[in-house]
């Protein structure tokens, strides 16, 4: 279509025509999608090195996500997997505008953000695999990546949950008198959460250095934008709260970069929060378990024709910045990095079961505490020894070790003295040895069972599977 409208956007305009604002305009009327000018050249190319970086980061994200989808199909990855294919320009354009000292926070669709911010693909893939070397040590999974070194403050599984956090980080930047800014990325669905309005209000009220970026991929899970938001120009939704908004072409990394750069500068220097809506499209389903019955194949095809990576690569070749062979080489490097990440993730061990209770609490010298609440740790729980509480809780804790890995009812069963005598008679003396034997296979079994398909067969499969 000449003006670049998708069927989705046409539908937005038609539906919203029936609703009227106070001034007689329809909410949809404030939207001017033609301003986005999809597919048109809006900015000169930056220097060749930057062009190369932007392209290679987008390619890395695309190849990573494709491979993650495959690994999910092979059951190497569990749970939910939300891919960001199609949204690479919005992600890379926005994050390239950050300084090293700035913070980034994101939603559960955040593999791209982590990679763009510089988290090693190995750490990301290992996290998806639930391994010890994952960037969240296998505790978070796909939705909860985190990288303190890169100031990537995480993916969050609760829609809108990261918004207050980002305002809090901005408050800290201000409080500590730094000139760091936080880039707070959310989806279109998050704009309907209570935290959206609350956070916009507080950020504006307190003049906090935060830039909100709505990656408008046009769907809140399976509900299209015009079916979930009365106002479809999302850049307007924050304005009533005092946060000015701007729209940009989320399929054009340079446009996103330009608009987000301005917003960051404004937030940093003028101490006024800003909002940017990057209009883009999610090529894949909400998660891997999405049959996509809420949209047509034609609509998806329409957007795929605007592919941000292909368009950018074509332009670089057309303008003589890169040769076609160089583009292909960058893509090959992305594939290689992703292959490497799969090998790395496959070789990384699952977390030790004994680490189950790590990092629930911080232990400090300042305020020592005794952690008695849970007697079901794999080891005698912390503090038990120091308080020398005696044999009973000690024994209970050891028996409770079964909880850490098994679900073996027998091992969890409290034994009466009669039981113990009977077991002793059957299995010989030494109740403790007997209890330990029961726990032992239980704790190791599920680990090997879960790893089994992979650890057992993965060594050879790795090499082949990595091509």
């Amino acid at each position, binding site marked *: 279509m000449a003006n670049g409208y998708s069927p989705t956007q046409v539908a937005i305009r038609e539906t919203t025509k029936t609703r009227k604002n106070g001034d007689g305009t329809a909410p949809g009327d404030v939207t001017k999608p033609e301003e986005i000018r999809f597919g048109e050249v809006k900015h000169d190319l930056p220097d060749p090195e930057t062009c190369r970086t932007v392209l290679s980061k987008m390619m890395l994200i695309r190849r990573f996500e494709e491979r993650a989808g495959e690994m999910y199909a092979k059951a190497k990855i569990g749970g939910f997997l939300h891919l960001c294919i199609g949204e690479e320009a919005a992600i890379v354009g926005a994050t390239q505008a950050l300084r090293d000292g700035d*913070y980034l926070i994101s939603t559960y669709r955040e593999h791209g953000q982590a990679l763009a911010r510089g988290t090693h693909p190995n750490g990301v893939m290992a996290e998806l695999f639930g391994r010890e070397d*994952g*960037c*969240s*040590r*296998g*505790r*978070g999974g796909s939705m*909860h990546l*985190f*990288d*303190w070194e890169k100031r990537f*403050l*995480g993916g*969050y*599984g*609760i829609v809108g*949950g990261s*918004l*207050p*956090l*980002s*305002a*809090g*980080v*901005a*408050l*800290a*930047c201000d*409080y*500590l008198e730094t000139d760091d800014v936080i880039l707070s990325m959310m989806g279109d669905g998050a704009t309907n959460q*209570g*935290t959206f309005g*609350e*956070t916009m*209000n*507080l950020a504006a*009220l*307190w003049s906090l250095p935060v830039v909100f970026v709505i990656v408008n991929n046009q769907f809140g899970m399976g509900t299209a934008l015009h079916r979930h938001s009365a106002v479809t120009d999302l850049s307007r939704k924050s304005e009533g709260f005092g946060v000015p908004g701007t729209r940009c072409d989320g399929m054009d990394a340079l446009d996103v970069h330009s608009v987000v750069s301005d917003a960051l500068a404004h937030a940093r220097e003028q101490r006024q929060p800003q909002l940017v809506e990057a209009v883009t499209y999610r090529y894949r389903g909400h998660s891997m378990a999405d049959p996509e019955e809420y949209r047509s194949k034609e609509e998806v095809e329409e957007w795929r024709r605007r592919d941000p990576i292909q368009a950018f690569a074509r332009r670089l070749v057309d303008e003589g910045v890169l040769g076609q062979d160089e583009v292909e080489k960058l893509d090959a490097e992305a594939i290689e990095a992703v292959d490497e990440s799969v090998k790395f993730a496959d070789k990384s061990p699952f977390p030790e079961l004994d680490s189950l209770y*790590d*990092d*629930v*609490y*911080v232990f*400090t010298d*300042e*305020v*020592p*505490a*005794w*952690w*008695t*609440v*849970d*007697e079901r740790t794999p080891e005698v729980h912390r*503090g038990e020894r120091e*308080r020398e509480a005696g044999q*009973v*809780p000690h024994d*209970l804790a050891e028996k409770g070790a079964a909880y850490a890995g098994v679900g073996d009812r027998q091992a969890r069963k409290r034994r009466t003295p009669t039981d113990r005598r009977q077991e002793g008679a059957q299995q010989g003396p030494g109740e403790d040895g007997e209890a330990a034997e029961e726990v032992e296979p239980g704790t190791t079994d599920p680990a090997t069972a879960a790893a089994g398909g992979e650890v057992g067969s993965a060594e050879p499969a790795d090499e082949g599977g990595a091509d």
Partner: protein
Amino acid sequence: MPVMRYREALNQALREEMRADEKVFLMGEDIGVFQGAFKVTAGLLEEFGEKRVRDTPISENTIVGMGVGSAMVGLRPVVELMTINFSLLAMDQIVNHAAAIRYMFGGQVKVPMVIRMPQGAGHQLGPTHSHSFEAFYLHVPGLLVAVPSTAADAKGLLKAAIRDDNPVIFIEHETLYGQRGEVPENGGPMRFGEAAVRRQGDDVTIIGISRMAITAQKAADSLAETHEIEAEVIDPRTLRPLDLDTIRDSVKKTNRAVIVEEGWPHGGVGANLAALIQEQAFDWLDAPVERVTGADVPMPYSKPLEQAAFPHEEHVVQAALATFRDL
């Protein structure tokens, strides 16, 4: 030892910790210009200014979330919520974020913050301002939970909570704010996880949570005077971590236990504690563990109904006597 009100003790703790550490700051609804709904923060705006004593809009989830975010990158926020009922609006930030963040990101970051809130019935505030929800927060790994019942504990535990690197749910009691008590001069932070034995006795152990620690002491006095029963009264002071040693040792001595709480009976603190006691001291028990709880209803407004809906001294006396029924 100086005597002061519970609210003054809290105020002193905040003031001292703010003087000691620039990174400690306060956020909450009407804590500054208005001096706090219960006047706990009186005078702090004057001393520390608007940067460190921040009046917020009525946006509980976001206030708490901003506390979490600022704590992740180095500040030590103390967030005040006007009542524990309002904390339910912030449940997402408390449970899904504050409590989980360190764990779910593999220990890369910590959330050193305090969320203060009053609970409890007695002021006829009806079904949305009078409940006791310590059981909700006790349920959540990653949180610490304090329930001070005296001025001294209020101060010592709040100082500890502010210095601790974990998110702390600090539950005050509305009817205790005006209560006076001795508070050690220049007292430092107290240890979390150390119960107080308020009264020694060999016959029955009464464990009182939050204000119910005081009700339990009155009941114990009455048991001694009227029934010649010497009760041992334990105030756990913190529920996470819980000083189960002291409770268990006492139950082993008395062979009887009564747990008194203001919250609802199902899934309550008493239910949990009764389970722990029977797990760890079953062979020493001479009677079933008794629970005295708030009534299983939303808190009513009307004074007689409200008074009937939370435990009083007589309920505790009856429950203690019930543990002697077989004798």
